[in-house]
């Protein structure tokens, strides 16, 4: 029996290096990460029974200045029948609190977010694939010299976990991690599509004020982002700020003059502002640029019809 266990163990260990940790520690110097980082002001919210997901999200939300307690978060994201919390519910929950939520997929990015002051919700399988023990925790620090990551996990504050051990548990959770930030503050490692998806999701859950702020933040980092100017225009339109929407769509059309979508949406903003002539001209432009897409023709017809009423 012991011999069997030993054989199993040797096989297992031989096959299981922690590739990202190894690579990260090897290329430490070139990554530009500080050797240590700890986000100080993220107190532990000790998880209640089965509530690791709600506790992790509540801590992340609190760190962004939102008011959220564990029970309240649990009502929004916990699934009693599964005795646990689904990952997508954590993602959606962050957005329902008006926060930007952006995924993180590599260990380097995870540590970079912590170094930038953004705690990261991590999903782990603390056990093996054959007997999974799923867990959410909040990563708030690391120490490369001691090869540790620091987690607020379960009922333990600042739990120091070996980095390669963490990587194994995280890999078994499919490398799922989420950065939750205030809408005016983008995740450090977010790329443009990820940031835009986060902002568009705020618009979808009708957190329009936060969505507008988030679009501005995306524009702050990528000033020529066509999608962000379009998104800002749509959000302002939904807020009935038609002049603001017009300005945003105009900017989008400046960035990409051949994009029919910009002219299509601009036409609606102009129509709402009562500028019939300009609205029709914009809609016609969308039609001429839009090829055989019938949406633009419908827009033109609708806008011509509006003024007849």
């Amino acid at each position, binding site marked *: 029996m012991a011999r069997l266990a030993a054989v199993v163990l040797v096989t297992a260990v031989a096959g299981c290096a922690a590739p990202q940790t190894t690579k990260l520690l090897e290329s430490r110097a070139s990554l530009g990460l500080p050797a240590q980082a700890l986000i100080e002001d993220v107190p532990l919210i000790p998880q209640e029974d089965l509530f690791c997901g709600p506790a992790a999200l509540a801590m992340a939300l609190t760190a962004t200045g939102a008011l959220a307690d564990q029970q309240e978060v649990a009502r929004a994201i916990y699934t009693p029948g599964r005795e646990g919390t689904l990952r997508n519910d954590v993602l959606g929950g962050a957005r329902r609190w008006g926060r930007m939520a952006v995924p993180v997929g590599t260990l380097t990015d995870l540590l970079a977010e912590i170094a930038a002051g953004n705690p990261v919700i991590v999903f782990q399988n603390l056990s093996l694939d054959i007997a999974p023990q799923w867990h959410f925790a909040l990563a708030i620090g690391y120490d490369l010299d001691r090869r540790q990551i620091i987690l607020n996990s379960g009922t333990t504050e600042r739990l120091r976990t070996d980095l390669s051990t963490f990587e194994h548990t995280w890999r078994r959770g499919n490398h799922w991690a989420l950065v939750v930030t205030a809408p005016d503050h983008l995740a450090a490692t977010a790329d443009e*599509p990820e940031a835009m998806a986060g902002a568009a999701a705020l618009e979808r859950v009708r957190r329009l004020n936060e969505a507008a702020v988030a679009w501005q933040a995306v524009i702050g980092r990528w000033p020529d982002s066509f999608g962000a100017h379009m998104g800002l225009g749509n959000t302002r339109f939904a807020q009935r700020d038609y002049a603001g929407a017009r300005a945003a769509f105009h900017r989008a059309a400046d960035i990409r003059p051949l994009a029919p979508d910009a002219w299509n949406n601009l036409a609606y903003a102009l129509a709402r502002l009562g500028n019939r002539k300009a609205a029709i001209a914009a809609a016609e432009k969308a039609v001429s640029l839009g090829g055989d897409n019938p*949406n633009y023709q419908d*827009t033109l017809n609708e806008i011509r019809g509006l003024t007849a009423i």
Partner: protein
Amino acid sequence: MSILRRLRHFIVVPLIAAMTFLSMPLGVAQAGLIGSEAIVAAETNAANRQAVDAFLQRQDVRDQLQTLGVSPSEADSRVAALSDAEIAKIAGSLPTDPAGEGALGVIVGAVIIIAIVLLITDIVGLTSVYPFTRPIR
């Protein structure tokens, strides 16, 4: 006769109008703002395709393709034939290289064995089930 004529005015004419209205295609109009999510999806698709294209431009990737017997131009045309969803999948898996996949999946056994294995793997730092263990390095 005159009653019928009056009926024609009050019934038939509105009836014709109603029938005409109902037979018009309803709900065809697709007009409206182009939504943010549609725009983000389009932008993301473009970025994904760029990422995959850039990946295929790398010399080491081209060398690997050559040894697989796929010419760079053939690879380009294969990628061009993929849908947005498929490209997204490829783009998502580009930066990670599969290494060190565990042989642990083959371990099947009684709960007791699992518990022992977990204790041992905790000690060597593969798992983190028992809070009292510290990994050795």
